């Protein structure tokens, strides 16, 4: 018996040691679905010997909820959108990347080196950026589509055939542009008008869906779909006769960023991974896969030539300004939450 116990303890100690050894070569990523080409992860493993594990999420809010519910400390890096970087930094969920820790930090394109959502890039590096607007099926509607009226006050041909993203931020930001009002407004009259306008517009909408935003356009179930530019490009490439709109009132711009999480179990490997993603060749592979912009200098020679002329990524001269989704304070957010509940009740 004693002998058995000894052997058991020895085996246990051995397995713990083995685990520790393996942990040196690990990296755990928390990432959006369908957003990272597997070949690129394989390349990272081949270059560094670090074994990569990836879990996925389908919205910024779902990722935040999961981290706050106790998953922090499990993952090394995550990929939040612009406004979510601000929120996560405010919640203390991010680790700081000290000066000099990233060799390739200088590769960040100058326009993305000091963004409003992460001044000085203390916690994040660019991953991909693009816009959120909407695509219209040109077989169904031939008129001018570069106006937010298409979503909120559509012509008869399009009424009842509109899919909206099931996301409060994207919908209310677009609605604010439509009404020409600021995001995170505290002006009661404007907020009431926003509430009323959305109630009215809902009558024209067929559905709210983010996961199948592209599929409903390809299948023809929806003639208008609020969508990310890359998904819009993919829908077009998959055969739908759709055109991506750049409304004169403006459209939403976003950037996803790779952040270093607090209590990352493999911090050194995470930094290696960030440096890896700042190599133009590597991040270009992501752009070629996801059809979004890269935010890193010197990527153009590695990009699929079709991307340079992609209509979804090249706004016409008369397009409105692109705006980021803003982060509201608690009291203001409560009103927007109420408006969203009113919309979906």
């Amino acid at each position, binding site marked *: 018996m004693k002998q058995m116990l000894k052997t058991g303890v020895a085996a246990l100690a051995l397995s713990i040691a083995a685990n520790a050894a393996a942990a040196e070569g690990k990296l755990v990523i928390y990432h959006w679905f369908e957003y990272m080409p597997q070949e690129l992860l394989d390349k990272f493993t081949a270059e560094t010997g670090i074994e990569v594990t990836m879990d996925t999420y389908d919205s910024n809010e779902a990722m935040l*909820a999961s981290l706050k519910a106790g998953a922090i400390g499990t993952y090394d890096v995550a990929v939040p959108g612009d406004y979510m970087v601000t929120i996560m930094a405010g919640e203390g969920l991010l680790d700081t990347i000290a000066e000099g820790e990233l060799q390739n930090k200088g590769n960040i394109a100058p326009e993305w080196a000091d963004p409003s959502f992460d001044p000085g890039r203390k916690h994040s590096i660019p991953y991909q950026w693009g816009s959120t607007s909407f695509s219209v099926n040109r077989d169904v509607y031939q008129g001018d589509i570069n106006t937010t009226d298409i979503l909120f006050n559509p012509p008869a041909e399009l009424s009842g055939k509109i899919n909206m993203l099931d996301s409060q931020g994207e919908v209310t930001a677009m609605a604010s542009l439509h009404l020409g009002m600021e995001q995170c407004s505290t002006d009661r009259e404007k907020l*009431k008008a926003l509430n009323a306008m959305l109630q009215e517009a809902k009558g024209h909408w067929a559905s709210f869906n983010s996961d*199948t935003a592209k599929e409903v356009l390809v299948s*023809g179930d929806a003639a208008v779909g609020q969508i990310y530019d890359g998904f819009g490009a993919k829908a077009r490439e998959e055969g739908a006769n759709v055109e991506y709109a750049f409304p004169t009132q403006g459209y939403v711009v976003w950037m996803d960023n790779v952040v270093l999480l607090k209590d990352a179990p493999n911090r050194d490997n995470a930094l290696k991974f960030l440096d890896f993603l700042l190599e133009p060749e590597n991040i270009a592979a992501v752009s070629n896969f996801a059809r979004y912009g890269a935010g890193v200098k010197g990527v153009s020679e590695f990009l699929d030539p079709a991307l340079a002329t992609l209509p979804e990524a090249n706004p016409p001269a008369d397009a409105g300004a692109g705006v980021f989704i803003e982060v509201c304070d608690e009291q203001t*957010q409560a009103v927007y939450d109420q408006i969203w509940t009113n919309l979906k*009740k």
Partner: protein
Amino acid sequence: MAAGAASGGSATTDTYKESRFWLLLPAWVVLGIFVLAPVMMMLIYSFLTKEFRGGVIWELSFAAYDQFFCDRGLFGDEPCTIEWTYIQIFWRSIWQAGAATLLSLAIGFPTAYFIATRPESQRPLWVFLITIPYWVNLLIRTVSMKFLLRDQGPLNDALIGIGLLDSPLHIVNTNFAVQLGLFYSYLPFMVLPIYAAVERYNFALSEAAADLYATKWTTLRRILLPAVKPGVIAGCILVFVPSMGSFLAPDLLGGAKNFMIGSLIEEQFKGNAGNWPFGAAASMILLTMVLIILLIFARQQAKAEKEA
């Protein structure tokens, strides 16, 4: 049936009286960890203060229940009037789940009867066939359903092809699509308990009724149905309860234009609202409602047995 179980049970208890505590312990531990603890956590969270963007602050608060029952206007500073929003959402869910249950019963009962009246050697095969579609993940089945029902999908193509329709029938993004999705998701939960009940039924009783000049309809209503009632009730509960909290079918098939209870609760944790106490409170209210419905069923059952 109840009497049989009781007498069988008492013999067992006597034999194992000494060790009863230890024998029950595993069951209590499982119940404690997987049922009581999560429910207690939910109950506690529903009375805590909301932390902005998800999470809770450990201070007693009734804000979650206030939000559920009190309408304080868009800006939250008007005096309390009755909040219809969430009652409406609950009512919609009950209605959808009820319709799905009736649909399941209408299809499930004849199916179960059919299986139970096959020769004994064939029955396992039929039960097996019923379960085959459910080896596939619910999400995939729901998405497939959407593709079948679409305006340009096979169902509409076929109906137009045989000349029954001129233009496609809009099914996707309607309440009916949600009911259909719920019905399809939970049909086996209706078929299997009814099958178990009908299989135990003594068909000599039906023959005796026929000998006494009862019509087929009367036999079904007065003889078969009362005998298999426990199975029917079990089936209805097993379909109704998960249907009420479901959010896959409403989101994918119904177009997510209106919250159901399930999607309302999901939004509090995974959505922009990030209001955990409110999500917990809505879950507690749902749980209480389901318990009340089950109690009513159980009491009626007991009453019916006493009368019999």
